């Protein structure tokens, strides 16, 4: 990987004070996105993936705080930026697409105005110019009859159309990076297909980078070049999509791959991951995954392995990753 990084998350740590004590939903997360890259962040519920996205733009709930680490975007640390400066980044240089378009869109504001707002505020366009731009964007994202639909309200749109509106809004100021928080999870398969292709196409056309959070592995395979797997607030594996999904280097990744039915390879028996995700208030000693891990050794119970580079872009937080590689080798 060469060239300057667009976004670099280094050892990010977020704490929430709860009545059970201090909980770290994000506990030392490091990520990188190069310009034009699409990076997927996968994990199950409670892994901290959505929160990672929100902490990049400072959209954490009021009781959550970034306690250490940094999020460097184009040279500046977003976590240490004053609010006014951060606001100039949000929307203008980093856009975001949420999971539930109905709650992310203002129900009492016309759709066209919501799309046009960004350019007006951030790019200083006049009203006419921003309206023109909004209609242009609506056309680009595939909303039919933009002249008529401009004046419509969100509830008049279907789920897929609303998500397109969200994409138009995210693109409205030509951002360099778009953060996507499970944007297609609530959509039907055929609509999801449309939206994923649209995102991939738009990003290729304008060179925008993507950070795509989801729990659905095939979706990541469809859209992203690189992927990071999250578990219990940490990244446990990183690499290209091709590499991670065909030659995983962490037992959790292997577990995810084996527990989900693959539409192209029916008939292999599903193997669930035993146990359940740990409580973040009192995580297990040593490696957080060890209680559920089939390859756990004695050192896994004691040592908390950091994420370390193995070769090229590949990184893993497993002390005995070779055993996972052997296992997957035996499969094929």
């Amino acid at each position, binding site marked *: 990987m060469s060239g300057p990084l667009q976004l670099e998350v280094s050892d990010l740590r977020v704490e929430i004070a709860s009545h059970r004590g201090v909980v770290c939903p994000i506990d030392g997360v490091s990520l990188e996105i190069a310009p034009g890259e699409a990076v997927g962040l996968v994990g199950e519920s409670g892994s901290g993936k959505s929160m990672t996205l929100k902490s990049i733009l400072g959209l954490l709930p009021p009781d959550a705080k970034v306690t250490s680490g940094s999020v460097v975007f184009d040279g500046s640390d977003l976590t240490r930026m004053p609010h006014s400066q951060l606001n100039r980044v949000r929307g203008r240089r980093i856009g975001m697409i949420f999971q539930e378009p109905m709650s992310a869109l203002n129900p009492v504001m016309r759709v066209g105005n919501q799309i046009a707002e960004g350019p007006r505020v951030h790019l200083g366009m006049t009203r006419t110019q921003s309206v023109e731009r909004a209609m242009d964007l609506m056309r680009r994202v595939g909303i039919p009859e933009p002249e008529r639909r401009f004046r419509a309200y969100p509830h008049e749109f279907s789920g897929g159309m609303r998500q397109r509106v969200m994409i138009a809004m995210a693109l409205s100021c030509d951002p360099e990076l778009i953060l996507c928080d499970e944007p297609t999870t609530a959509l039907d398969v055929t609509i999801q297909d449309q939206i994923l292709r649209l995102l991939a196409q738009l990003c290729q056309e304008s060179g925008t980078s993507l950070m795509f959070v989801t729990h659905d592995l095939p979706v990541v395979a469809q859209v992203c070049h690189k992927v990071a797997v999250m578990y219990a607030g940490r990244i446990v594996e990183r690499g290209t999509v091709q590499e991670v999904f065909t030659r995983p280097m962490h037992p959790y990744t292997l577990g995810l791959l084996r527990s989900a039915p693959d539409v192209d390879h029916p008939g292999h028996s599903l193997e669930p991951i*035993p146990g*359940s995700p740990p409580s973040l208030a009192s995580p297990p000693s040593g490696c957080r995954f060890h209680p559920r891990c089939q390859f756990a050794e004695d050192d896994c119970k004691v040592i908390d392995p950091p994420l370390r580079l193995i070769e090229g872009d590949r990184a893993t937080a497993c002390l005995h990753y070779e055993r996972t590689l052997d296992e997957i080798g035996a499969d094929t």
Partner: protein
Amino acid sequence: MSAVSAGPAAAPAPAAARIRARGARWYRQPTLVAGLVLLAIILFMCYGAPLLTSFNPDTQNLLEPLVGVGRQGHLLGTDQEGRDTWARLLYGGQVDLRVAGLAVLFPFILGIIVGSLAGYFGGWVDAIIMRIVDIVVAFPFFVLVIALVFVLGTGEKSIYIAITAVGWVSYARITRGEITVAKRQEYVLAAQSGGLSSVRIITRHLLPNVITQSIVYAMSDIVQDILAIVTLSYLGLGIQPPTPDWGTMIATGQNFLTTQWWLTTIPGLAVVITGVALSLIGDGLADLLRPAAS
């Protein structure tokens, strides 16, 4: 059978801890605790009356009318017929609290039954019941109660009938609304698909989940009923003399406002304090039960 288990043994252990935590939470509700303590004191005083006074509330002693505070062994003096005020206050409290308690219970039961039927079955049952509710609700509570007692004649029984006839509507509305929403929950569908009868579903499955709102409302309803009873007695329509009761005490003591002012104001204060206690309990319960409902 594959030995698939995702750590289920962990489940029941936190159970005990959770129940303990939930029980402990009610100690931590200051409003609830304050209200309960206050009510406990009031109940103790009223029902422990024989311990707190040796006087009989009905005994007239025309030789000692309007005795001042603390004089001649009368803690709060006597009224114009020589009856000990303190004794009347305590025994009167028994009457008022008992009547108010029962007066809340009947509309509660009736309202919940009617509301459940309306909510669960919907259709014309719901339509008819709700139109009746609308009509009753159109009249101010006190006006209707007083009118009914006037028609039915004075006395305790009339109070119960009147308050029940007017008060059931609030509970019906609350219950009907809650059940209309709750019946769409999948666990109700599951019970239906399990072949359980409607009665069983309403009583065992739905009501325990929706009754909390009605209970909270009942707390403020008792206060309203106490006021109604006191007002009725004040107007001479409720509890009849010689039975002691705060309303009558307020009414008769009025005449002596400038001289023995305590004859009117002390019973009035008793009503207020009881109302405050019940309101605190209601507020505390509402706070306690609301998060558990989600």
